[in-house]
C-alpha cells in the first residue's frame, strides 16, 4: 500500500489540484454567464461530470468506450518512454492503423466475422507498426531525433491518407470521400448500446505490455536502453535494434488503438476524423507514469472526462472545454511537481517524469544510443 502511494501520490494530488484550480476558473467565468456569479457552480458541474461518466450504465459504457483507445495510445507512448524515446507520432500511427483497418474491414465486409475482424485488426496493427518503424529506423540508422520525425510524420499521415481516400479507396455512392461500410468486420457489441470487444482487448493489452516489460528479456533490454544505453551496449544488447523495435511496437499499439476505434466506433475512414487520441495519449502516459496499470487508470479518468462532459454542459452550462483545461492543468502540475509537493506537503522519492529526463538528455545534443558502432 505504501509503495503504491509512493508512486501514485503525485499524480493523484495533481488531479485534485487541477480540479481545485479549474473550480476557480469556473467560478470566475460564471460572472459573465446568464446565470451570474455562482460560488457553488463547480460543485454542480463536477457532480454532473461524475454522473455523466459513472452515474448510469450508459455513462460507464461511454467512459470505457472513450477510454479504450486512450489505454492503447497511452501504452504506446509509455513503452517509448521506457526505452528513452518520446513517440509524439501516436496521432499519425493511430490514423494509419485506423485507415488500414477500415480498408481491410470494408474489403471483408461480407466475410464471416471470425475471419474479417482478426484480419482487419491485424491490418491496423501492422499499419501502425510500419508507421512507427520509420522513425525508429531513422533514429537507429542516422540518429534523427524521433520527436522531429514523428511530428513530421503526423502531418504526412493526414495528407497521405486524405489522398488515399480521395484517389485510391474511395467508396462509391457517398457524397464525400470515405471508405466503404465495414459490415461484418465491426467489433461485436458485448453489452448495452456500445460496449464493444475492443475494450476487454485494450485491458488485456495492458497486462501483455506489463508482462513484456517486467518479465521478459526484451522488456529488460528496452528498459536498460532507456536507462543507460552505454551499459546496454556493454552488456551485449543492441541499442540500435531495440530503438527500432520499440518504436515499431509503440506504433503497433497506436495502430491497434486506431483499429478498435475504427471497427468499434467510427466505422469508416474519412478525411478529418483526426480526433484528440494522439495527444491525449501523451497526457495519459505521463499521468500513468509510463506504468501500464497507471496508464489504465489514467485512460479511464480521461475517458470519463469525455463521457461526462456533455451532461455537465447540458445541466450546468459549464462548457465541455473546461475538461481540456483540467487535463492541461493535470499535466502542468505533473511537470511542476514541486507545486504539488508544497501544497500537500508530501515527499516523493523521484521526479514524476523521469522518462522525460531521458528524453531531454538525448534531445540536448547527446549521441544516439550506440551511435559509434
Amino acid at each position, binding site marked *: 500500500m505504501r509503495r503504491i502511494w509512493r508512486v501514485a501520490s503525485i499524480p493523484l494530488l495533481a488531479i485534485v489540484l487541477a480540479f481545485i484550480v479549474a473550480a476557480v476558473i469556473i467560478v470566475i467565468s460564471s460572472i459573465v454567464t446568464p446565470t451570474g456569479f455562482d460560488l457553488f457552480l463547480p460543485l454542480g458541474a463536477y457532480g454532473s461530470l461524475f454522473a455523466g461518466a459513472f452515474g448510469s450504465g450508459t455513462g460507464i459504457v461511454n467512459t470505457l468506450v472513450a477510454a479504450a483507445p486512450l489505454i492503447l495510445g497511452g501504452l504506446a507512448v509509455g513503452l517509448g518512454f521506457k526505452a528513452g524515446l518520446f513517440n509524439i507520432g501516436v496521432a499519425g500511427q493511430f490514423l494509419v492503423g485506423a485507415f488500414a483497418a477500415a480498408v481491410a474491414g470494408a474489403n471483408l465486409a461480407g466475410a464471416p466475422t471470425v475471419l474479417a475482424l482478426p484480419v482487419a485488426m491485424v491490418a491496423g496493427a501492422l499499419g501502425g507498426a510500419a508507421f512507427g518503424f520509420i522513425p525508429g529506423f531513422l533514429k537507429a540508422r542516422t540518429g534523427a531525433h524521433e520527436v522531429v520525425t514523428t511530428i513530421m510524420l503526423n502531418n504526412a499521415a493526414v495528407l497521405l491518407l486524405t489522398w488515399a481516400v480521395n484517389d485510391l479507396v474511395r467508396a462509391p455512392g457517398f457524397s464525400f470521400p470515405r471508405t466503404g461500410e465495414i459490415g461484418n468486420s465491426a467489433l461485436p457489441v458485448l453489452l448495452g448500446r456500445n460496449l464493444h470487444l475492443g475494450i476487454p482487448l485494450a485491458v488485456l493489452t495492458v497486462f501483455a505490455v506489463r508482462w513484456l516489460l517486467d518479465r521478459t528479456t526484451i522488456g529488460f533490454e528496452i528498459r*536498460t536502453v532507456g*536507462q543507460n544505453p*552505454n551499459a546496454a551496449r*556493454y552488456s551485449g544488447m543492441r541499442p540500435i535494434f531495440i530503438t527500432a523495435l520499440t518504436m515499431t511496437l509503440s506504433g503497433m499499439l497506436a495502430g491497434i488503438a486506431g483499429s478498435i476505434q475504427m471497427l468499434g466506433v467510427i466505422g469508416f475512414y474519412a478525411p478529418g476524423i483526426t480526433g484528440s487520441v494522439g495527444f491525449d495519449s501523451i497526457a495519459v502516459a505521463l499521468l500513468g507514469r509510463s506504468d501500464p496499470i497507471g496508464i489504465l487508470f489514467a485512460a479511464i479518468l480521461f475517458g470519463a472526462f469525455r463521457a461526462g462532459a456533455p451532461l455537465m454542459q447540458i445541466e450546468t452550462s459549464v462548457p465541455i472545454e473546461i475538461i481540456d483545461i483540467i487535463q492541461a492543468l493535470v499535466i502542468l502540475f505533473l511537470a511542476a511537481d514541486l507545486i504539488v509537493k508544497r501544497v500537500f506537503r508530501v515527499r516523493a522519492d523521484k521526479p514524476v517524469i523521469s522518462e522525460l529526463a531521458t528524453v531531454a538528455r538525448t534531445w540536448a545534443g547527446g549521441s544516439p544510443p550506440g551511435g559509434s558502432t
Partner: protein
Amino acid sequence: MSDQPPVLEMRGITKRFPTGTLANEAIDLELRKGEIHALLGENGAGKSTLMNILYGLVTPDAGEIRIDGQPVVIRDPADAISRGIGMVHQHFMLIPVLSVAENVVLGQEIVRAGEILDLGEAATRISLLAKKLGFDIDPSSKIEQLSVGQQQRVEILKAIYRNARILVLDEPTAVLTPQETREIFEVLRRLRAEGASIIFISHKLDEVLEIADRITVIRRGKVVGSRTPTDCTENELAELMVGRAVSLRVDRGRSHPGDVMVEVSELRAKNDRGHEALQGVDLSVRAGEIVGIAGVAGNGQEELVEALIGLRRPTAGRIRLAGQDLTRASVETRRDRGIAFVPADRHRFGLVLTYPLDDNLALTRYAEHPFAGGFAGIVRNFRAITENAIRLIKEFDIRAPGPKVPASSLSGGNQQKVVVAREFRHDLKLLVLDQPTRGLDVGSIEFIHKQVIARRDDGVAIVLVSAELDEVLDLADRVLVMFRGRVVGVFPAEEAQREKVGLLMATGGDRS
C-alpha cells in the same frame, strides 16, 4: 593547544536508517582551526553519512553539532552554507553545459539594475579567487570541456566563493590521476595556510598519512581510533580500519601460463574524436597469465580494452581468442565466447544505477540460462536472478541491505564490487580489467587482488589496465608499456622495476 574552541565539534552523532542499518553510532569528531583532519574508513563505514548530517542532507537521530563552541541545528544545505560549511562531493554537482563562472555563482548570482545577471563581475571575482588559490582556470570555459581534476577545483572554488571556513572533501582523490592528486594536495595545503579547516574523507592510507594533521578512523559506524601521521604506520591504520591484519602486498605465487589464449595483432582504432588512438598494437596473453598494461592515462589503453570487448570497432588488425577470429564479433558473441570486462567508468558502462542490485548482478548475463528461460527463452527467472544476487553479495562482501535496493544507494566502492562480482564468473577465457580497484578500500583491494590471482590460477587470460602503477607491477606476469597508441616496451615481471617502467611511460623510449 589554544583556548579557542574547535571550529567544529560533533558529539554523539547517531543515525539509524529505516532499513535498520546503524550508519553512525555515537560518533565524536573535532575539527580544529587550520587543520586537515582525515576521516578514514572502509567503503560503507559511515563516513559519508556523517558528512551528510553535517551538511544538512540527513537528520541525525541523536547528537549535537557545535560550530565555534555554539550548538547549532543544520536543517538543510543552505543552512550549512550560511554557517560556513562547504562540501565537495565525490560525484560533482556541476552543470556541464554552463561555464565555470555560472556554476560558481549559481544560487548566489550577482545582479545589477534589478534582475540582470552580471557575469562579467562574477568572472572577475572568480579569477581573483582562483589566482589566490593558485588555480589556472578560465571562468568562461564550459564545465564539460574541463578535466576531472579541473572540475574538482571548480567545486572547491564554489565552496570558497560561498565563504566556506569548514571544507569537506568526500574522497576527492578517488577520481584523480596521481599528478592531479599531488596538485590538489598543494591546494589543500594552501587553503590550510589561509586558515581553512578541512575534513578529508578517504580510504587511501598513503594519502591520509601524507596530507592529514590528524586522522580519525571509523569502522562500521563507530570511531575506532584517532592518530596523528607521526605516531602510526600504514599497516596499523589498515588494521584499525578493516578490523583485522591486512596484507598490503599481493602474494601472487607462481603463475603457470598455458597456451596463447588471446592474440591481438596490428590493431588500429580511432578514439571518439576521430584520432588514431591505437597505432598497430600487438598483444598476446596466455591462459593463466596476467598481462599488465602500464601507461599514462590517454595513451590508448581505454581504446584497447574497448576494442577487446567489442565496444569499439577496430579500423585494422586482428583479435583472436583461442584461435577464433573475433575482430568483428559483437559484444554479445564475445561474452558468449568467454570474455568479461570490468570497465573503468562504472556509472557509464558497468551499472544501471536505477536498477536493483539483483538486476545489476545479472546485467551482462540477463539472456543466459538460468536467468532467462520459458518459451523461446525470453521469460526472466526472478528466482535465479535474486539467488545469484544473494550469493554474490555474500561472496564479495557487498555492503547492502539486500538484493532489491537500487545500485545508486550503494557507496562507490560497493558499486565497484557489484561490477567485479558480476564479471568474475567461473567459465571465463579472457578477463579484461580496467581500473578494477578504483575507489576501493584496502580490505576490498586485497580481496579483489586475491580473486584476480585465483582466476589466473584457474587458467583465465587476464589483461589488467590500471592508473596505479603499483597495482600493475604487483599483479602482472608481464608488463606492457603503452605510449601514444603503441606498445613501447614489454617486461617480464622480474625485470619490471618501477623506475624503468615509469620512465618509459613518461617518455615512450626511443620510438617516441
